[in-house]
């Protein structure tokens, strides 16, 4: 791999709460290469969104505390000054959020919101920015963009709003796009359209993408590499095929087995994962997944497993070997 676009090193995010500090992200490290799509997979509370917000200093501090480093093209995002990070936000690193209904300002026109980054980062004039905004809307597949640029968000459907968010994200030709559950709120047919759009833009612009989701189906369709997060810690990281084929980590495996797959006769009972995701303020001392892991042994609940690399580009945090799994 050539120099990564982003190299996250030992990222730890904790929040001060009434019951003490809660570590929501714990020693999280990963790289994103040029034109690569990295999927970060996890359930709610796994720390996947927080870890990406931390990159752009978008978490309120306090109560949040962010430690570690995130080298973006060699510069550490975490330790940047306010004005430095502003120069990066929306310019070199763009972000798309989950809910296109609330992520767009309801009282500003689409055009206004699209033009902002163009004017700030590219120094465009109003006319130039407006022309570019229309162009961008066209790029993301909004029909008759010239007529829609002065519309307000509520006049757009959910899918179109997410397209606007994407247009906003790519407006300054960023090096890295972080999409945080960008299709979760959309219907499947719309999701398919958006995924298609992202893939196309990525090819055209050579964009690196961090795709944050809980949906393994989406991951299978879009990612080059996958990071699985659970309870704030990385469980497994690998290229896409290895994750799905080898299912080295019990959590990855359980997750895949618990999802129904369309087609076929009435299948067998789903293999549900018992129990509940952990409360970040009361993480177990050992492996965060241990209490729900059907293969867990004594050691799992005491020692947190270190990441090990069973193969090139594959890292797993588990004391056990797939051979030990007894289904």
């Amino acid at each position, binding site marked *: 791999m050539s120099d990564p676009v982003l190299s996250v090193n030992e990222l730890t995010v904790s929040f001060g709460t009434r019951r003490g500090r809660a570590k929501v992200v714990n020693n999280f490290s990963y790289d994103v290469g040029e034109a690569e799509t990295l999927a970060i997979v996890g359930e709610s509370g796994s720390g996947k969104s927080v870890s990406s917000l931390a990159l752009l200093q978008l978490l309120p501090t306090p109560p949040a505390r962010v430690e570690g480093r995130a080298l973006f093209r060699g510069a550490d995002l975490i330790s940047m000054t306010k004005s430095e990070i502003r120069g990066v936000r929306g310019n070199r690193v763009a972000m798309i959020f989950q809910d296109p209904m609330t992520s767009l300002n309801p009282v500003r026109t689409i055009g206004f919101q699209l033009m902002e980054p163009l004017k700030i980062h590219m120094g465009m004039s109003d006319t130039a920015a407006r022309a570019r905004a229309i162009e961008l809307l066209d790029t993301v597949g909004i029909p008759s963009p010239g007529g829609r640029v002065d519309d307000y968000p509520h006049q757009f459907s959910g899918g179109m709003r997410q397209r606007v968010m994407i247009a906003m994200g790519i407006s300054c030709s960023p090096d890295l796009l972080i999409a945080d559950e960008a299709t979760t709120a959309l219907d499947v047919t719309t999701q398919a359209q958006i995924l298609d759009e992202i893939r196309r833009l990525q090819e055209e612009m050579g964009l690196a993408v961090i795709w944050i989701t809980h949906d393994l189906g989406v991951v299978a369709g879009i990612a080059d590499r996958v990071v699985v997060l659970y309870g704030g810690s990385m469980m497994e990281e690998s290229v896409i095929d290895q994750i799905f084929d080898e299912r080295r980590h019990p959590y990855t495996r359980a997750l895949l087995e618990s999802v129904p797959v369309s087609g076929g006769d009435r299948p067998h009972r789903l293999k549900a994962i*018992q*129990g*509940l995701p952990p409360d970040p303020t009361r993480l177990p001392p050992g492996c965060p997944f241990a*209490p*729900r*892991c059907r293969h*867990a*042994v004594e050691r799992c609940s005491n020692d947190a497993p270190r990441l090990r690399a069973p193969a090139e580009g594959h890292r797993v945090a588990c004391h056990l070997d797939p051979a030990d799994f007894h289904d």
Partner: protein
Amino acid sequence: MTATSSRDDHYAGEPIAEHRSRLRATVDTILLNRLAVTGLIILLLLVIAAAIGPLVAPYGINEISIPDRLQGPSASHWFGTDDLGRDLFSRVIIGSRVSLMVGFIAVGIALLIGVPIGLASGFYGGAVDSWLMRLMDILFALPAILLAIAVLAVLGPGIGNAMIAIGIVYTPIFARITRGSVLTIKESVFVSAARSLGATDIRILRTHILPNVVAPITVQTSLSLAFAILAEAALSFLGLGVQPPDPAWGRMLAEGRGFFEQAPWMAIFPGLAIVITVMAFNFVGDGLRDALDPQQRSVIESRGQG
């Protein structure tokens, strides 16, 4: 397989939050709010003062002594004396009874009329709603003090009628807040759920809607108490309100305003009593709001009426 997982096979995990009743959770939240605690302590002291007032008051509230009039605060008269030589400390202490009673009963009246109107209006909607709310709008559009004065003129002055007058003025606020909450709660899924189980309207109102509108109403109650005390003061300033010689703070303050230069203590002590009490109610109201209902904003509506 571990022991943990075998139990998980049977039950789908333990509750994720520690067991605290809703009330307990509310109390905890309030106790974490320093201002709310301050307010509660002040109110507690006031209630105690009102309860044992006659025992601690060094003088009778109507012990007139013209030679001792307009004396400044001293060891024998902590808050000084008024224009009739009455001990202000005793009057302020006993006055807490009158002022708190005016507040509580006035707001109680507003609650008793306003909440059922709001419930009926919000729950049944349609024509009932239109008519009741238009009526409330009309009351709302009437200048509050004039309305109170007119009601007082009709009923005749006196502490009881002052309470009724203030109560009528606050009725539309409670009706509106209740209606607003009912409209929200009525649309909530758990009400549909109850309906899907075959629950009758009465049952839904009683079991599901009423307990859930208690929160905003409680908040509004504490804020309205504050404003009822201010309203009593305003009415007393205009020469209505509580009848002499009952020592209501508003009346004492209104009487004291003519003595600002000769005997500032006549206005300062009842004034402070009002300010502190009103603040205490506001603190508690804000604390309750944080604990029960972060979206509440009725303070605006209620004070506007003052």
